[in-house]
């Protein structure tokens, strides 16, 4: 490989100090180039070298264009009107959503109603109705079982803090939404993940959709949801589900694909059907990964609940929103603290569950 060296010319009249410096500089430059050659950085450097080796006129044109842009390009700066499709696309999407609003109204409305009446509201009522000391006790017990005494002690303290800060009811409302969305996300995500694991075609089709869902800013979900479901708890839940479902899909898929092929083959050799294989071999062995996905999903749901307070989902997020709207820093801060406390407790407990499943998995015979 050719090495680039800085053009160094040393005249006879220059002093020995400078010569020494230039020699050292040249050496370290070539050392640096050699070092780059052995690292992934070479993929960055190679195109630069290729650019450096371009004919001179390419450089001249590029420089001329860049300098020219200091003054206006005038009309040629813009894409021609005929090629401008942005407004058309957004109008088409609008029309599509309008169509859905009109034609799916009954179905969406009944879904909204069913979810609200038969799941979300009873759950919320029950959670809010619980006395804070009972919740603290149960959380302490569960934390003790899955993580240990320190976490149990901390969790109890944090629930007491929630109650003392007057955030307990709001936290339970938020919890109701998080639980509802997580249940929906699991119900949606695990089967999708299984389908992706079982078929490469489904995998290739769903993967870009997941990428899209995860790169889309969370606010963008709110717009169609408002159009379709209006404002309130259920649209909040729907937006949260969309936001939080990718990790559990991905990790279910990954978990099943990572199951030792030898174990799966053994299952097949003993006459297991596809369903038996899934239930008795693949899912149990994928469980740690699925649990990790569940943990991620719950965390993302909690993060999104705050955002959905903008479309009328009640809970701790509303406090934060109001704090911003009314410039009440204290109120916003308390809401934030409440969310952090819930995040810590939920995260530790679900991670503890995931770890409990771990030992059974480390056993693939080598």
């Amino acid at each position, binding site marked *: 490989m050719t090495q680039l060296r800085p053009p160094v010319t040393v005249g006879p009249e220059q002093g020995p100090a400078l010569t020494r410096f230039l020699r050292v500089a040249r050496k370290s430059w070539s050392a640096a180039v050699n070092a780059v050659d052995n690292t992934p950085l070479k993929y960055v450097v190679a195109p630069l070298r290729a650019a450096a080796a371009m004919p001179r006129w390419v450089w001249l044109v590029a420089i001329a264009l860049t300098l020219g842009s200091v003054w206006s390009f005038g009309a040629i700066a813009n894409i021609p009107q005929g090629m401008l499709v942005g407004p058309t696309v957004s109008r088409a999407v609008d029309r599509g959503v309008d169509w859905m609003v009109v034609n799916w109204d009954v179905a969406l409305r009944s879904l909204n109603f069913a979810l609200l009446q038969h799941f979300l509201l009873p759950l919320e009522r029950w959670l809010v109705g619980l006395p804070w000391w009972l919740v603290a006790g149960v959380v302490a017990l569960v934390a003790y079982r899955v993580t240990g005494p320190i976490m149990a002690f901390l969790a109890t303290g944090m629930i007491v803090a929630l109650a003392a800060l007057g955030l307990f009811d709001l936290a339970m409302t938020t919890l109701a939404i998080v639980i509802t969305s997580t249940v929906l996300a699991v119900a949606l995500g695990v089967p999708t993940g299984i389908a992706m694991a079982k078929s490469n075609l489904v995998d290739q089709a769903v993967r870009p959709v997941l990428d899209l869902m995860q790169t889309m800013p969370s606010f963008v979900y709110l717009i169609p949801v408002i159009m379709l479901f209006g404002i309130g708890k259920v649209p909040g839940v729907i937006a949260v589900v969309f936001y939080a479902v990718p990790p559990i899909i991905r990790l279910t898929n990954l978990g099943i694909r990572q199951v030792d092929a030898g174990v799966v*083959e*053994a299952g*097949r*050799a003993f006459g297991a059907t596809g369903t*038996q294989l899934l239930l008795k071999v693949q899912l149990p*062995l994928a469980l740690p990964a699925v649990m990790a996905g569940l943990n991620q999903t719950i965390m993302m749901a909690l993060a999104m609940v705050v955002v959905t307070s903008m479309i009328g989902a009640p809970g701790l997020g509303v406090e934060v929103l109001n704090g911003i709207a009314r410039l009440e820093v204290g109120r916003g801060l308390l809401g934030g603290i409440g969310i952090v406390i819930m995040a810590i407790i939920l995260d530790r407990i679900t991670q503890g569950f995931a770890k409990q499943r771990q030992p059974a998995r*480390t056993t693939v015979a080598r």
Partner: protein
Amino acid sequence: MGPKLVVRNLWKVFGPHPQQVLHSEWRHKSRNEVLQATGHVIALRDTSFEVADGQTFVVMGLSGSGKSTLVRCLLRLIEPSEGQVLINGQDILGFHHHQLIQFRRKMAGMVFQRFGLLPHRTVLDNVAFGLEVQGVDKKVRLKRAQELVEVVGLQGWEHSYPSTLSGGMQQRVGLARALAPDPEVLFMDEPFSALDPLIRREMQDELLRLQERLRKTIIFITHDLQEALKMGERIAIMRDGAIVQQGTPEEILTAPSDEYVGEFTKDVRKAAVLTVRSVMRPPGVLVSAWQGPRAAVHAMHQAEEELAFVVDKHERLLGIVTFKAASEAAMKGSACLQELITKSPLVVPADALLESLLTMTVDYDWSIEVLPVVEADGRLVGEVRRASVRDVALAAKAQQPAAPVSPQ
């Protein structure tokens, strides 16, 4: 009854268009040519063999010879491209999905090189797995699993997880799991290759002991010729997806069909594998007990032998008569051979290994230079001479430093 398992002209081609390769001139080209020109791998080429009920059939070959593919094709874990696999006369390649599942559940048991145990289940639940997928009642299947855990000597470990077991013990679980549904055919894919040599030998002996009792039909895959010779009643040797020779261990050792097989068998300690049968010769002079000394003398004279074997009417060995004793008796005009018979100082069983022949004769003074060879029922089938025993001893000595063969 016909053979248990018949494999006829089985082909397997890996690649995007196996049928096109099979139905063109590529069918007759070598594996490398086909791979280079078409990107297809001929993993099995026209393999055929038969396995009798209760027989242990060993398929031996180096890695990449297609032996693992072969055993998977027999269960359709890999779908063969062409051919027939008949079990009890039924072609499993014609089975529907449901029939195939039933076949795997009821007729076949498989043991894997890497054990393939379910890490999230206890030993007992692993052993019961085959019955569980059949839908057998929990109590029944656990009872059966318990029996098998005891058969393979793992009592006390029922509730352990596989990860806490050593390799040998894990493979015992694998064996118990394969035996639990009481399959008719046992497929063993290099079952002992992942174990260290000491445990491997122990497991081999254990399997032989079990097999003595169970008499299952076993398809046993291995890359170790020593193991093949030990386990197999019949052996097939594979190369590049084709079977290059099949026969009994003795046939493989004594008459390798080509250089490839010969290369394998070269280093094998034959004395540990071959039996006396391979070195014995037909008995020289045979006289019946009812014949007189004159007849015996005549026979020995004709054959220029110093002694004759005396047998009863069922060809059972009664003893030996020397030329000297017989001729003296003939001179005296005695008509009875009976009292001239002496016991042969050594009687060699035909099924004894050459090794044990050497140990038997190590203290023998060779006062009589011909030893009778008898079947288990006492029938005389041959003789061994001092010279051939010496040859065996020399050959064994020459191979002394050779370790057991493991071609990989």
